[in-house]
């Protein structure tokens, strides 16, 4: 049965073929064909047999549809246009030879417009196989049976169309023209139109390309933001190194030699301790983020390899992060220094100043050293920036043409 289905599928492709063959026949209004029924009956039966023979020779599988058609052979008296619908197997070979002639006929029809009645009738006949095709799909019946019924339906249903011949003609003519242009445009010398279409397509492609590749893309925005932040980071690196150096120098100057004048330090420095701590955190945060950007820390394997090979940027980021944690760990002491004037006796009991301040000074010194060292590492290779390298690779590679076709399919 699969073979039978395949044959019916093949047969379904056939109906459009007789369209041009029918044009050569004397075109008759559908109602008139019933009047000529007795005269053409025998001839058409014979032609039908011949075509069945030809089809059987060509395609034995067509037998599958045969019994179904013969089952309704009782209504063959109404077969007025059946030979016309069965003509294609005979016409097929001729049509290859006369394809250009037919096409020229179509073009002539196009030129003549809806003036000739014959053309209109021919177009009515053209319409019928299309209805047949739809009903084939819907009802999924054998072709011959459908031919019978559809022809009958068409002859009964067509009468209104001659009344509207002026309107039906352009509708009918548009079909072959569209088909011709799609399949064989070169034979119709329609090169100008196709060329124009191609050029318009090229123009569309160009506009699409320009549309997809604007002058200022999101990638450029990302890169510019990243570059701006890198510049800000460079300023922060330098400012942080200078500020931490100034801070530790001030602390050691106020604390005196061997931290002997810590009360003087608390007295002078208590108003500066918290602002400097806050500023130090902000600068350390920006610097750490900037150096992490340069290392591309999110790529853990790459970052680890850089740490192991002691690359300057990896070391700088490590030093900045360590300095950040050390700085944060002194928040409590900084707040204690900040509140020196308000809670002098409770927060700073006499004798404990050295015990509380010595780690704080040491940590500040270490932070200053880390920050200075990291700044040196950064300024040795200021151009190293892996994140920017990744951002620069964010470009769209257009899919290959064959892939596009696959996607369309």
């Amino acid at each position, binding site marked *: 049965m699969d073979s039978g289905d395949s044959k019916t599928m093949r047969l379904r492709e056939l109906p459009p073929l007789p369209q041009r063959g029918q044009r050569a026949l004397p075109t008759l209004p559908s109602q008139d064909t019933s009047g000529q029924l007795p005269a053409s009956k025998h001839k058409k039966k014979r032609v039908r047999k011949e075509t069945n023979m030809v089809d059987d020779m060509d395609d034995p599988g067509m037998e599958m549809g045969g019994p179904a058609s013969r089952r309704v052979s009782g209504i063959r008296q109404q077969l007025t246009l059946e030979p016309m619908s069965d003509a294609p197997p005979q016409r097929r070979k001729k049509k290859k030879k006369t394809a250009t002639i037919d096409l020229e006929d179509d073009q002539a029809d196009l030129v003549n417009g809806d003036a000739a009645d014959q053309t209109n009738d021919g177009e009515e006949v053209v319409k019928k196989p299309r209805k047949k095709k739809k009903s084939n799909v819907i009802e999924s019946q054998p072709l011959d049976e459908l031919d019978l019924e559809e022809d009958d339906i068409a002859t009964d249903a067509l009468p209104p169309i001659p009344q509207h011949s002026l309107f039906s003609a352009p509708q009918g003519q548009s079909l072959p023209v569209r088909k011709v242009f799609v399949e064989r445009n070169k034979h119709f010398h329609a090169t100008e139109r196709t060329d124009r279409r191609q050029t318009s397509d090229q123009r569309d492609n160009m506009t699409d390309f320009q549309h*997809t590749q*604007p002058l*200022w*893309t*999101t*990638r*450029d*925005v*990302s890169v510019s*933001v*990243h570059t701006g*932040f890198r510049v800000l980071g460079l300023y922060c690196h330098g400012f942080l190194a200078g500020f931490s150096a100034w801070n530790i120098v001030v602390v050691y100057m106020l604390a005196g030699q061997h931290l002997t004048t810590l009360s003087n330090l608390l007295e002078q420095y208590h108003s500066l301790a*918290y*602002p400097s*701590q*806050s*500023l130090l*955190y*902000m600068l*350390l*945060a*920006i610097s*750490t*983020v900037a150096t*992490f*950007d340069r290392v591309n*820390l*999110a790529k853990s394997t790459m970052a680890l390899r850089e740490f192991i090979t002691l690359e300057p940027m990896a070391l700088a980021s490590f030093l900045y*992060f360590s300095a*950040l*944690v050390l700085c*944060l*760990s002194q*928040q*409590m002491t900084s*707040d*204690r220094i900040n*509140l020196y004037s*308000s*809670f002098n006796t*409770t*927060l700073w009991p006499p004798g404990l100043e050295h015990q509380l301040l010595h780690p704080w000074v040491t940590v500040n010194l270490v932070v200053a050293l880390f920050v200075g060292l990291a700044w040196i590492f950064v300024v040795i290779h200021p151009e190293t920036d892996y*994140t920017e390298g*990744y*951002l620069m690779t*964010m*470009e*769209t*590679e*257009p*899919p*290959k043409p064959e*892939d596009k076709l696959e*996607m369309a399919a």
Partner: protein
Amino acid sequence: MLQTGNYSLVLLVQLTLLAYDLFVNSFSELLRGAPVIQLVLFIIQDIAILFNIIIILLMLFNTYVFQVGLVSRLLQKFRALLIFSALYLTLSICFHCWVVNLRWLQSNHFVWTDGLQALFVFQRTAAVLYYYLYKRTAEFMGDPRLYEDSQWLRDAFARAH
């Protein structure tokens, strides 16, 4: 396709929220003249973090990669940000609640304990990692390959299936 103007605007909003976050983290200790000032600053900061997470999630949902169905690839690429954002938001809310609770009656006095100090260090350290990952992700969201069909996406799709 993501429009450049829209992306610039969204990026500006994100970086503004990040800058506000950094400002509050840095200088909120100085702005404690009245407890209500810190309360308002902390509430806005937490809302800003939440907004930033929502924005980045919406941007992820807007990508062609997500709409195609390669969610796992997006999550694999940006999971660090999502984890650190959630962690930072949690730590921030905890720290803010603790500090405001301690300073509500008397704002300018010594409140630090070892636990608060440890939470402070963790919150501020997570903040720096959050800034880095968020800025990086926000910049990577401008990748045109995330928003349209491309060979890269086809390769990723072929690898996923």
